[in-house]
């Protein structure tokens, strides 16, 4: 249809039917914009896309091809579904092993290991700061011995993917994993290993940092370049937007800050002369899936397109190099309510839909009870079933990128990309992510966004069922997972026994070597792997690294 004719008809509709309808019932105030502040037009038509300068070939293209808006894989889910994953891990290694074997028996494709906080910040289970924290939000891994037990009866090469959620201590966990594969007699290249390895987001949001930013990036890069060199099929870094979003950032900030960090990492990798054409195709982004359905779907597409456009220019790689970010989506923990927790099953289902329609490669749904604790077996099973139902019963995977071409969605996608790019330019103008961290850029913006959200909920401008709408007075308590009380004691006893029984000379030598290499620019992974083999503990290894690198302090609040 002729554009002018369409514009005329649109105007007629707006001034005619719409005006009449508005006289009867005004529009809700809260439909005016998305949570990130993008205005919602009443209706989107081909005219909207036209105005935005939208061009199918340039802006959408085809799945698996630059700019990857329509997805990373040409076949979408018509071949394999996304990976059904659950983030799990708790207690000591034996308890975690039980939970993983349960999930695998229920149809989970791979394992994503949650480590407890002491492990995450490089402390042994018997460190004074670890008291009360051992095995609570993940599994306690103080040494290779623990990792061996975690994977007891789970051959590494029989899982579709093993994901180690390790950041500040990723280099040590990688080393332990390499040593584990040796012990299992499995060739490491028969497994697909993913390591989160995004320490910048720890400084910006999550808070599980150990060393200051510069040595932290050195370790991050050691992991990336070691894998690029020796295990090119592995996924040695995942750019995280999830935690930044959960800290209170909005959808646009999630994209911008995640990708700005990605550029910081890739700049360092490039500076070291690593083969960018090998590294870039192995990158993933880890994103939240929150409740605003279309904003989220648009966000994933904008993220892929923006990254591909940015890095093609920045690192000058040829068109044969895949720049399509692999998307790991996790439903938003912060969207779960403590009030009427069964409702969370619905929230998670909606978020899973959005995550899949955005084109993710793996999906992690929350469990309904996670506003209270890490999930029970029953709750986590429902979460897994949620994905299985969506895959098998809804048909949304039967064509690639079914949402492509939606006037609303494509407009939102472009808006998000444009706004995120502006923020990335702001961060670049400050000198990049590390400088921006130092200058409190992220802190300020995230504080503002999170406080804004809270005010909206408190005033009722934003409705949350069970919290400020449809509340119930007395609720029956639900059964919650309790980590066994003896976990900490048991773990500490094991650890102390290990320290007595291992070859302490070998440990000493290995730690000295780690210290020596840390002071140079040499890749630390080989030295760390020897330390892991010798059963040096997490705390011992990080202690040595702390003596060379120092510790990060949060600084001004």
């Amino acid at each position, binding site marked *: 249809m002729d554009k002018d004719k369409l514009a005329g008809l649109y105007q007629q509709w707006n001034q005619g039917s719409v005006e009449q309808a508005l006289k009867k019932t005004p529009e809700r105030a809260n439909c005016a914009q998305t949570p990130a502040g993008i205005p919602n037009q009443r209706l989107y038509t081909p005219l909207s896309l036209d105005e935005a300068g939208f061009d199918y070939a340039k802006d959408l293209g085809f799945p698996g091809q630059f700019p990857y808006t329509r997805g990373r894989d040409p076949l979408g889910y018509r071949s394999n579904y996304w990976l059904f994953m659950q983030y799990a891990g708790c207690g000591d290694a034996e308890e975690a092993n039980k939970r993983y074997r349960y999930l695998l028996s229920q149809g989970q494709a791979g394992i994503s290991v949650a480590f407890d906080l002491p492990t995450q910040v490089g402390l042994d289970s018997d460190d004074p700061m670890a008291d009360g924290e051992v095995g609570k939000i993940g599994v306690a891994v103080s040494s290779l011995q623990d990792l061996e037990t975690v994977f007891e009866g789970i051959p590494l090469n029989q899982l579709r993917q093993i994901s180690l959620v390790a950041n500040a201590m990723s280099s040590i966990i990688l080393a332990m994993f390499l040593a584990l594969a040796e012990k299992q007699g499995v060739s490491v290249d028969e497994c697909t290993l993913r390591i989160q390895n995004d320490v910048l987001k720890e400084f910006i949001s999550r808070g599980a940092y150990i060393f200051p930013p510069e040595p932290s990036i050195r370790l991050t890069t050691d992991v990336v370049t070691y894998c690029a060199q020796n295990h090119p099929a592995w996924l040695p870094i995942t750019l995280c937007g999830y935690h930044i979003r959960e800290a209170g950032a909005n959808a646009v900030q999630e994209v911008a800050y995640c990708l700005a960090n990605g550029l910081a990492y890739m700049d360092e990798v490039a500076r070291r002369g690593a083969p960018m054409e090998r590294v870039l195709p192995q990158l993933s982004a880890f994103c939240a899936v929150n409740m605003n359905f279309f904003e989220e779907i648009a966000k994933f597409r904008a993220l892929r397109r923006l990254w591909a456009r940015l890095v093609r220019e920045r690192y000058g790689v040829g068109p044969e190099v895949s720049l399509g970010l692999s998307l790991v989506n996790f439903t938003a923990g912060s969207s779960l309510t403590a009030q009427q927790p069964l409702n969370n099953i619905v929230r998670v289902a909606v978020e899973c839909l959005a995550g899949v329609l955005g084109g993710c490669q793996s999906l992690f749904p929350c469990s309904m009870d996670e506003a209270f604790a890490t999930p029970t077996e029953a709750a986590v099973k429902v979460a897994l079933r949620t994905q299985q139902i969506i895959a098998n019963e809804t048909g949304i995977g039967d064509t690639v990128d079914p949402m492509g071409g939606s006037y609303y969605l494509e407009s939102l996608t472009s808006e998000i990309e444009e706004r995120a790019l502006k923020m990335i330019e702001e961060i670049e103008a400050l000198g990049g992510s590390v400088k921006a961290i130092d200058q409190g850029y992220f802190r300020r913006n995230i504080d503002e966004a999170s406080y804004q959200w809270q005010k909206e909920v*408190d005033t009722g401008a934003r409705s949350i069922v069970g919290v*400020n709408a449809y509340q119930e007075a007395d609720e029956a308590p639900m059964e919650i997972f309790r980590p066994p009380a003896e976990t900490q004691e048991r773990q500490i006893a094991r650890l102390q026994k290990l320290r007595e029984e291992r070859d302490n000379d070998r440990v000493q030598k290995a730690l000295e070597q780690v210290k020596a290499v840390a002071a140079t620019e040499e890749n630390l992974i080989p030295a760390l792997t020897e330390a892991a083999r010798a059963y040096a503990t997490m705390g011992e290894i990080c202690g040595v690294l702390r003596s060379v690198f120092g510790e990060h302090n949060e600084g001004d609040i």
Partner: protein
Amino acid sequence: MPKRHRIMLAKAGLDGHDRGVRVVAMGLRDANFEVIYTGRRQTPEHIVNAAIQEDVDAIGLSILSGAHMTLFAKILELLKAKEAEDIVVFGGGIIPPDDAQELKQMGVKHIFGPGTAMDTIVGAINQTLEQREAK
């Protein structure tokens, strides 16, 4: 002119999730409280010493890591040992309802869980502090 109350907000232990405590800090400041936020990874000893030194009326502890029973208990113990039990203790985070009950029996005045409105927090703290002053 009502006295302006002083609150210390703290994150004890290793948990780094600070959205809640930062939002509560901003909300309390807007409600005319003086707020000192210690930042992450504080030991109970440091928190209590700082609270006494800063002469605060209340300590608010944020814990999402499951370590709440251990950490709240330590804080209460230390306040008792230093004869500073007039400092009110409250908190929030990811704390199962049963545990919240137990914490209250131990002497924690309020546990503000997910979904608590800012007004509720402000009101509850004001009420507790006024009651304490009335004694």
